[in-house]
């Protein structure tokens, strides 16, 4: 399966490999500034493992991965999600960690596995999506959604929804249905709101009306995050000089609010650099998808793009107070080994697509 040759090496998209490494290192600066204990070390180990995974996967034929490995991968991650429900460790109200010597977060792996399964199904599908297609696609995404919903992690659940929606769009859902689907989504969100838990409602309310939110309540994190971002200014307070992050006003600064730490310590310029790196990563991925040899490869890479974009939007949106807090990490930057490795797995698969664009 793994094949290395001269032409392959020449085709490696070094920029695509460099951007995620740079982002991870960028994140490490924020982790170093705010995290207690060994978080930084774990993140660096994850980066090394992630790079190794990416390189191995890069030299692997993605078609074989999609066709042969994906079902097993998908199956295993779902089993892990079930195990999490029974043996998982609860962290901050969400049960999505599994302890097997090291802590792993099966939901992160499940995201990639689900993308692979969707791409696998759609490799054979042609033309506009039929209702049957839509049904099968939904069926693929439903098991992880249900399992994660049982664990109480609304944010990750929504991520799967976003992936599914992207595949609907890219896979050729009819325009009318897309519009109808969006309408259903909006109506669904509005009707679901009163049934949310009080803390979830408050997290949404603070977005629209930060002034009247209880600063001690669930709006607290959003308010403190916005203060952190705003107080950073153009050039920031300096690395290791942030007061919001370091004095504990930002809860979990090194995971969910790493973006606020960057904004506080490195300012608007730091944020611009970070966004440029993300855009670079996404642009390279989209250009790979556009140049992919087959539909499965293109969809797989685009699914990965959708995943990253949704994470960035949700996470940074939360950091700047325009999205409710859902516990979605910032790709590559938030402290969390499984997430970093999953991202590099995605990058490796994309590189594999690129290296095989002319091969038949």
């Amino acid at each position, binding site marked *: 399966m793994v094949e290395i040759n001269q032409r392959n090496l020449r085709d490696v998209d070094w920029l695509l490999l460099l951007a995620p490494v740079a982002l991870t290192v960028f994140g490490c600066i924020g982790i170093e500034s705010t995290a207690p204990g060994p978080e930084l070390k774990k993140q660096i180990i994850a980066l090394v493992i992630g790079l190794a995974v990416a390189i191995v996967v890069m030299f692997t034929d993605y078609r074989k991965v999609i066709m042969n490995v994906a079902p097993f991968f998908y199956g295993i991650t779902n089993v892990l999600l079930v195990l999490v429900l029974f043996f998982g460790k609860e962290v901050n109200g969400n049960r999505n960690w599994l302890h097997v010597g090291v802590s792993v977060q099966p939901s992160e792996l499940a995201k990639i596995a689900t993308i692979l399964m969707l791409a696998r199904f759609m490799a054979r599908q*042609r033309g506009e999506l039929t209702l049957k297609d839509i049904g099968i696609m939904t069926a693929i995404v439903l098991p992880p959604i249900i399992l994660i919903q049982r664990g109480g992690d609304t944010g990750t659940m929504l991520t799967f929804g976003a992936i599914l929606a992207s595949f609907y769009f890219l896979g050729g859902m009819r325009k009318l249905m897309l519009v109808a689907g969006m309408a259903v989504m909006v109506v669904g969100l509005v009707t679901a709101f009163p049934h949310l838990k009080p803390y979830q409602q408050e997290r949404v309310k603070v977005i629209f009306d930060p002034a009247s939110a209880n600063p001690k309540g669930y709006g607290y994190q959003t308010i403190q995050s916005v203060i952190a971002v*705003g107080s950073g200014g153009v050039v920031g307070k300096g690395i290791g000089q942030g007061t919001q992050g370091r*004095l504990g006003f930002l809860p979990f600064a090194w995971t969910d609010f790493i973006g606020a730490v960057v904004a506080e310590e490195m300012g608007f310029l730091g944020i611009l650099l970070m966004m440029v790196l993300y855009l670079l990563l996404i642009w390279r991925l989209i250009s790979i998808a556009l140049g992919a040899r087959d539909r499965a490869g293109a969809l797989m890479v685009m699914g990965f793009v959708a995943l990253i974009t949704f994470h*960035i939007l949700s996470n940074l949106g939360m950091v700047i107070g325009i999205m409710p807090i859902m516990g979605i990490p910032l790709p590559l930057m938030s402290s969390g080994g499984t997430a970093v490795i999953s991202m590099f797995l995605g990058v490796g698969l994309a590189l594999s697509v690129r290296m095989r664009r002319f091969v038949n």
Partner: protein
Amino acid sequence: MSKNPKEEGYNFELRMRGFQYMVLAIFILLGLRFYVLQVARHEDYKARAENNRIRDIPILAPRGAILDRNGVVLVDNHPAFNVVVFPEDVASKEETINTLVENLGVDRKELTDELNDKVRPGSQPILVKQNALPSDRAWIAAHELEHPEIKVDQQPQRIYKYGNLASHVLGYIGEISPKQLEYSRYKDAGYKSGDIIGQGGIEAVYDEILRGQNGRRRVIVDSRGRPVAELEKIEPIKGQDIVTTLDFDLQNLAENLFTSKNETGALVALNPQNGEILAMVSVPSFDPNVFARNVVSTENRKEVRAIVNNPAHPLFNKATQSIYPTGSTWKIMMATAALEEGVITPKSSRIVCGGGLQLGNRFLNDSGGNHGSPDIHAAIVHSCDGYFYRLGLKMGVDMIHDWVSRFGMGQKTGIDLPSEQKGIIPSREWKKRVNPRDPVWKDFDTAIASIGQGSVAVPPIQLIRAEAGIVAGGKFYTPHLLKEARATQVEDVKYYDNQPTELMLSPVTVGIIDYAMWGVVNEGGTAGGVGFPRELNVGGKTGTAQVIAREKVRTKEHKDHSWFIGFAPMHTDQKAEIGVVAITENGGWGASASGPKVKMIQAEYFSKKLGRPILPELVAFNAQFQAKPEPAPAGARVMVNADRKRQPVRQ
């Protein structure tokens, strides 16, 4: 890649491009928002981040001590470990309340009220327990993580060393009320909610002098409110110590004279030559320490309520706030006015007594019997009512009103104590106002007003100011309690500036009055039986203030109030140094209950001055009632050297 849009039925590449633009749009949106927060609104958020981490912790300035004229410390502070709650760090009110109630014995209702007080700034700590025990402090230290809002603070606590002693003069302290915050006196001086201020007596009147300047610690705190670094520290400046005009020994003796006999009333001793008050007593009194503790605890609130709701009104200062008919002590003013106006003259002052006065169908009785036709000297010595009924009628109400007003009757004396009462003096307007059914002033009204009954009711402080002024030859000094406010590193020493109101009184008149008052005590007059030491040359006047008509008196509550006012020495070549007025409520007739009190005070004054015992009775009494300072709470270090030592007073 298959690039046949027709075959696919839709354009895959177009959708991917669309996706790309969507991503771009998201990034632009995020970037714009970052720009708004970090560039456009940076200053605002910068300030908010600073507010988050920088906290000013006030360091309360100890209030100035209050001393007697000889340096005896009456009020001081000692450092106390207090448990405080910072409302802005409270995460859950309910949890904080439950914790404090269960573990530190705090009163639930009080604490709930305090925490829900909307006027109090969040940074202002709430005092929930004073004099925390070591076990309390250990508990708080152990629960610092769960309850960062509960802290132990070392603060100065006010201590009134002799409990009830001079409580009405010293006053008490308490938290500023929302109503007080609206007064310009407090608002303009920068007082804020939660401040502890003087609420009565000298504590209130001289609050600005006593309070000092609070210091502060500016610290960096983490999100749990724990200081992690100190930026600056401004030390507090203690308030100015106030040296009062009070004499501890006289004050203590005066209170014991009432309490030892279970009597109520008031007593004021002052120096007629400068208005300095040596003793001021109102009985019943209260323990100001109860208010100073100001703790959110059930016991303390009970103690406070017991004082506030006591039907005997112990907070009331009877010397300045209660008004009484003066009875015959009033006759001194009548006689002075009559002599000055020439209604009677030194040579021709005889008026019939007749044992009373028949007015229409009413007979006004002279309680002392029939005195024949006394001159003014004998009329005062024997307190002849019949004489003064007739004298009053000769003068007329308008002249009486005019003269007693000149003596300051019916007006505030201006004493440095809060809420002084004006009282009532005879006037046609007064009768019209209070008695609309019978609005016309009659001879009857003039006659009874002439012996200090009927339309006469004034606080004791007014009476002694007026008659001390007459004794001092027409110099009316404002009675006052501040002798000196001692200098601190930022404030200069302050003295009470007392300019007398002067009234031109003929020395002959003053001489006649002085001699008559001397006669009351020393010529077998109404106070002849009190037993004043002859050598003191005390001059005085008795008074009996009728509570209801005599024939109806059945119970003690209806017994007359007993007055005595006395000055010493009353001698042609000496100036009177001490004037004492005493009123014993329901004490019966003038000389009986109040006379001995004045005697003891004057004997004590001169014993101290001459350095030898004057009255054996006094020596025995003092031996029985020795004042001891209340012990400071265990472990407390007293801030000012508080020994009852005579320290020289800087003049």
